[in-house]
């Protein structure tokens, strides 16, 4: 870095922060998508008129999802710290942030997936039932494939939301680009650090959106 220290930001600092963000993003997104698709499927199948109509399951899971989604992420993060500690054995660091990020994004993706599945024309389900498809087959062979374009868009939206939430991960000492912006750009008046993190976040979000949109377009048909 330069002798006269016109910035505190070093390549080391920057790349380890980027690595932390990508780790949080990647792990939470993968786990959250798996959980979210499961939640969305249960919500879509158990609702009134669904192939596995079940009022209790629908109300319980729907209520839980609403509860999680009604908390601002920073509150969720501290509120579930005991649960986080139970799960990963620590309440600081990247993994301590990944737990609440996953919980938040799973609930979010769950709702988006539920919507995507409900958008599949009712006739498709009717055809599936007329063929004697089991509820599992209706989900795997009819609903999820037919909804895949909008599922990809749902995950894309969730990924962008995740980047937003990772900025708060510094609270539990998980680092990341957002934390860099706050602790260097903001608290130490480092304009270059601020600019670098802002540009990085913009590039990340744009990149995710671009990948998601083109994948969705490709998968909508064919």
């Amino acid at each position, binding site marked *: 870095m330069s002798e006269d220290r016109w910035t505190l930001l070093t390549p080391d600092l920057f790349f380890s922060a980027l690595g932390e963000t990508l780790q949080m993003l990647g792990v939470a997104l993968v786990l959250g998508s798996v959980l979210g698709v499961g939640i969305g499927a249960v919500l879509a199948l158990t609702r009134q008129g669904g192939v596995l109509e079940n009022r209790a399951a629908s109300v319980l899971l729907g209520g839980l999802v609403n509860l999680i989604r009604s908390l601002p992420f920073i509150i969720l993060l501290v509120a579930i710290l005991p649960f986080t500690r139970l799960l990963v054995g620590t309440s600081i660091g990247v993994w301590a942030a990944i737990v609440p990020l996953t919980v938040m994004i799973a609930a979010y993706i769950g709702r988006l997936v539920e919507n995507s599945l409900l958008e599949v*024309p009712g*006739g*498709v389900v*009717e*055809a599936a*039932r*007329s*063929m*004697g*498809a*089991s509820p599992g*087959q209706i989900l795997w*062979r*009819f609903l999820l*494939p*037919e909804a*895949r374009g909008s599922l990809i868009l749902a995950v894309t939206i969730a990924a962008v939301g995740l980047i937003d939430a990772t900025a708060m991960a510094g609270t539990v000492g998980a680092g990341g680009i957002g934390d860099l912006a706050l602790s260097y750009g903001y608290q130490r008046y480092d304009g270059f650090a601020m600019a670098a993190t802002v540009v990085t976040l913009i590039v990340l979000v744009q990149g995710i959106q671009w990948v998601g949109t083109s994948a969705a377009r490709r*998968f*909508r*048909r*064919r």
Partner: protein
Amino acid sequence: MSADSAGLIEFDDVAKTYPRGAAETVALRGVRLRVEPGRVFGVIGYSGAGKSTLIRMVNGIERPTSGRVLVDGIDIGGLRGRPLRDAQKRTGMIFQQFNLLETVSVRDNVAMPLRLDGVSRAAARARADEVLEFVGLSDKGDRHAAELSGGQKQRVGIARSLARNPRVLLADEATSALDPTTTAQIIELLRSINREYGTTILVVTHEMDVIKDLADEVAVMADGRVVEQGTVLDTFVRPRTAIARDFVTTVVPQGLPDRVLAHVGGEGLWRLLLVDDEVTQPLVSDLITGIGVSVNMLHADMTEIQEHTVGQMIIKVTGEADRVAAARAFLAERVEHLEDVVR
């Protein structure tokens, strides 16, 4: 596919109500029907008559509130879970909106029922190609549904419904989204399935043309009831209820325009129905030269119904009162059906 005797459908006093808030909608009120194996049976009625509710009970997508729906003697409404799904697999269904998957090829759409049964992808696709060839789409297997016309999509739907060699085929308004030419082609395809494989076909429609060209027997539904039932020919020649007559009129006009009726109405205005050989009799000239009345031919038409020719004439006969009576007696001997035209 063997032409065994399987494919019998029976409705035994079937009722269905849907809850609607505190009240309820009654969709079916005590329906009794029997569809013999290998027949093409049509159900016609206006919107809301309960046709879809009725047909959806045959494959257990809908359950009776009371009464029983039997397919080959098995009470479909009494089945749950696995046994129900197994029963559903013996019945094929096609839909007004086709209900094909948009994200897989035509071939994989047709292969789907077999894939559900655990048949390998290769074997299922081979069978799909076989059925696609039968419906005349052997060159479209790699396409996607979105690239096909409505008629082609319905052929894919038919191919999919045939993949498992069902004994029963259900068609809910299968041609209602198609133009007349395409409708005729689909009807011909369904008839050929019935002919070649002896498949029992139950069709539900609000178009009497479809009944005329496709069905052997017809049940007319109104307000959740079967109000009239018989062979298609009988129903066309002698509709017994006002609603059946309305449907017949959409294919064979039954009367005269009011302005014409005002002019020629009264005594001696008759409607004649002629079936098969009766059509070729020289009736009018016999009336004029043999009986000695004058005849004014106001309307004549001819249709093909279930391999029968059905002709219709509306004539105004005038002359001495005893001659007109003689003309009527003469005609009554020679035609299937004779009636006064009144407004």
